């Protein structure tokens, strides 16, 4: 029992879970609206897109890289899909758009993967450049405009609901979007890749130390390449889900999301230098950001304060974990030094 407790106290996830729980309680006490079925369903719906993006960002950060191009990638691919299907007057179901999202996302991800994996260029700079290219391609070459109508298959999927939650007191209802299934499936796939495949081991190994990973027999080039392809697919699916759920295509709507997603992932205890972090922590961190963004209004904090809170949260949250890491390292180092001296 004590062992488990000590183990838990050393993990970042525990702290973030406690913070989340305190925040939930605070909101509940102030508003009596948090633990209502419709609010929980609303937060879960808000988690879908952010959560899928977070999966991709999480895997990239684990590998020691960073990706700021995913909102642009998602916008470009979902705009292209919507536009192509509208032009073709497509009447079928959701499967073709999903397939297209996977293909487009894979191709655009391979673009990033080529520069980062094969040429070994810094991920931040490459993805800054590719974000600019994707955005320019969408707005310039494809001449993107807001599309108020989306193909019926996508619309049906976006408006379909698994179940409807009703608030007994206020009578407000919220629908549980079917797109949460995509989120759950992707979560399982990512868990499987990271925990049960050699490829996933490779991602952690590269993030820990690329030279060691290379010496241990991992192909750094190809692991990075396929990682960015996978992240492209994941982000592209997130874009498609967003379009379906909004039942319209707004090309610039997703741009600018990258910073909050990265913040959520890092808040969840993922080391920005790579090599360490868990999916659970990543999801908890993302949930924290989503709750702060969506529920501050419930405790009577005006929406203008949102950025201040998110900013303070990032600084304090990451600051605490950074101090912990620093202290752990210096204790370790001191011990080693004293052993060498003694």
């Amino acid at each position, binding site marked *: 029992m004590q062992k488990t407790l000590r183990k838990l106290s050393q993990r970042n996830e525990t702290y973030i879970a406690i913070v989340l729980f305190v925040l939930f309680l605070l909101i509940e006490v102030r508003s009596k609206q948090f633990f209502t079925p419709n609010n929980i369903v609303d937060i879960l719906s808000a988690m879908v897109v952010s959560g899928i993006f977070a999966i991709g960002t999480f895997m990239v950060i684990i590998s020691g890289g*960073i990706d*700021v191009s995913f909102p642009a990638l998602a916008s470009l691919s979902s705009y292209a899909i919507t536009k192509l299907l509208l032009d073709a007057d497509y009447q079928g179901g959701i499967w073709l758009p999903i397939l297209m999202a996977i293909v487009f996302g894979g191709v655009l991800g391979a673009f990033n993967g080529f*520069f980062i994996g*094969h*040429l*070994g*260029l*810094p991920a*931040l*700079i*490459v993805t*800054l*450049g*590719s*974000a*600019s*290219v*994707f*955005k*320019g*391609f969408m*707005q*310039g*070459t494809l*001449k993107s405009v807001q599309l108020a109508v989306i193909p019926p298959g996508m619309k049906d999927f976006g408006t379909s609901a698994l179940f409807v939650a009703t608030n007994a007191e206020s009578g407000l209802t919220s629908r549980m979007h079917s797109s949460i299934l995509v989120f759950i499936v992707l979560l399982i796939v990512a868990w499987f890749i990271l925990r049960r495949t050699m490829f996933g081991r490779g991602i952690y190994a590269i993030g820990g130390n*690329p*030279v060691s990973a*290379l010496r241990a027999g991992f192909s*750094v*080039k190809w692991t990075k390449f396929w990682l960015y392809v996978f992240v492209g697919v994941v982000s592209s699916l997130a874009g498609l889900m967003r379009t379906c759920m909004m039942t319209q295509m707004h090309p610039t709507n997703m741009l*600018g999301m990258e*910073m*909050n997603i*990265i*913040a959520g992932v*890092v808040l969840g205890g993922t080391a*920005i*230098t790579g090599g360490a972090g868990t999916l659970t922590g990543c999801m908890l961190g993302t949930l924290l950001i989503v709750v702060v963004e969506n529920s501050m209004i419930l405790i009577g904090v005006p929406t*203008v*304060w*949102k*950025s*201040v*809170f*998110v*900013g*303070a949260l*990032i*600084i304090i949250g*990451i*600051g605490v974990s*950074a*101090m912990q*890491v*620093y202290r752990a390292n210096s204790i370790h180092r001191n011990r080693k030094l004293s052993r060498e001296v003694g």
Partner: protein
Amino acid sequence: MQVNTNASWIGRLYAKDKHLFRIILLIILWSAFMAITRFQKFYTLINFQTMASQFPEFGLMALGIMVCMLTGGIDLSVVGVANLTSILMALLMKRLELADGGLAFYVIPLSFVLAVGIGAAAGAFNGLLVSKVHIPPILATLGTSELFTGISIVITNGKAVSKLARVYATTINSKLFGLVPVQLLFFGGMALVIWFFLMRTTYGTKLYMLGTSATAAKFSGLNIDRLLIKTYTLSGVCAALGGMIMLANYNSARADYGTVYTLQCVLIVVLGGVNPIGGSGRISGVVLATILLKMLETGLNRFPKISSYYISLIWGGVLLLVMVLNYFSDNDIHLFRHKRSISIDSGV
């Protein structure tokens, strides 16, 4: 004979600094292209004056990001600092406005002094987070960027601060001797100051050393914490001045002005030959890259048929192209000579 000396001069420049050489080459090529296609519309005094009054606002922010990148860090909060400064100063000027809609003579100098103070404080805060709290720079400045923007939103309620006294905008928008825009003087002055710091003081030497190897710097007895705080403070001051120029150019201030500048400035700095890992890069490269981007943008606007959205495509493309060229020259790969010599670690 003439050709020979020319070739060796160019060769020497190329060997000395490949980044600088490439940027100068790009500027010459683009100028020639504009001369052939749109000579009359591009080569006018007014056009150049307009460009020179517009690029300092993001050029100053790029200078700030540059000094941070030399240490191996980055400052993503420059736009946040710039907007916070311009909003606070706009409010101050509105408060001190005289009855006839003018400003007392001391208000403009005072607001610049205060702006530098705010920028320095914001930058020092970044520096503290990076050095004392040990947050990776990219995350620390990401967080403070959100925080500063948030404070700006709270102060203004998300609305623009406008209807400022005209005096401020006309002063900053005026031209020295009827020729040189005042904004350019700020940019040039700051670039000179940073050049002096980097090249003529021990601070600069330490900065490059820290960027080259933090461990070596530490064991050489450098006070890394103080060095980092100084650097981020300098970046904050640059950003605050950029904000003051934005305030003059738009004649209003708002929390979400210039949000595209963050990535654009990082792009400029990398294009200017600053190594993102730190340790190398020159101020001349960054200044020329700023000018190149402005020339590209203004030049493209002279072609009404080309959508202005292509600019972001071209910027991204140029950035990736430069990175790939660097990769080839760094790894000694000659495309047309079939001589490939990549060591085993280069793929890492």
